[in-house]
């Protein structure tokens, strides 16, 4: 990881990480978000759905992606950062996911350098649970 944003260049990969999405994490996320939908929490209920079991909140996968961005751009991500993503597939408790990102362009926007990154979170089979792009001021 570069020491400062001024060293960022197009093609830089962001430091992704892996995280096992346990049911304990899903339960904690329900408390944090206030989303207590039983499809995330109640196995008996979830077994009657099209998924046949509980699924993690989609926003939990996105939260992992934003953790990566906050760690990579600690001084600017929360002060002018933007993202746009699509949720492509559910994550099931017990699965291990991996976040990823790459800088695809750096542009001058009104006198401020801004990096555009592809971002996402992949499931164990390589498919995206969530994917999209983010823009982050570099200064």
């Amino acid at each position, binding site marked *: 990881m570069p020491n400062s944003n001024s060293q960022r260049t197009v093609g830089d990969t962001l*430091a992704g*990480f892996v*995280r096992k999405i346990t049911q*304990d*994490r*899903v339960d*904690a*996320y329900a*408390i*944090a*978000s*206030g*989303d207590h*939908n039983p*499809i995330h929490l109640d196995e008996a209920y979830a077994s*009657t*759905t*099209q*998924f046949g079991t509980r*699924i993690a*909140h*989609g*926003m*939990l996968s*996105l*939260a*992992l992606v*934003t*953790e*990566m961005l*906050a*760690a990579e751009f*600690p001084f600017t*991500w*929360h*002060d*002018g*950062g*933007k*993202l*746009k*993503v*699509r*949720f492509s597939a*559910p994550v099931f408790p017990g699965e291990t996911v991996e976040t990823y990102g790459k800088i695809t362009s750096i542009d001058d926007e009104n006198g401020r350098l801004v990096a555009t990154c592809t971002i996402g979170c992949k499931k164990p089979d390589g498919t995206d649970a969530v994917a999209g792009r983010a823009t982050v001021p570099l200064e």
Partner: protein
Amino acid sequence: MAVPLISTAMVGHVFGPYDVTISADRANAYASAVGGDESPDYGESLAPIMVVAAALAELIEELGLFSGGLQTVHAGQEISWLRPIKIGEKVDARGKLTANSIRRGNHFATVSVCYKDSTGTEIATSSTTIIVSEEVSVAQQ
């Protein structure tokens, strides 16, 4: 069962305002859910996606998505941050339905949300797109 709001709401419908102030307990729960060795040190601030998640939970409730027995897919999300948000800082979220079309029996709805601090200053925005089916009685994501 009452008709869920998603079935009747018109574009321009206003949601909230919701109090999405995040307490230390909820911030700790977030850290348990999401955190790890790679996580940044937020200090007195919170991971700002928490206010978006809190507003989304309120929207799901007000739209009647789960209580109405509707299958809902969280299809897309946009977020922008204008400044860091502190734990316990008063934040209000106000949403507006910006799209609600029906195609092949599915609602495609987008709700844009503006987050303001106690002075009324905008500190973040988000836009959530959901697909709601009236044919299956499940809610997801």
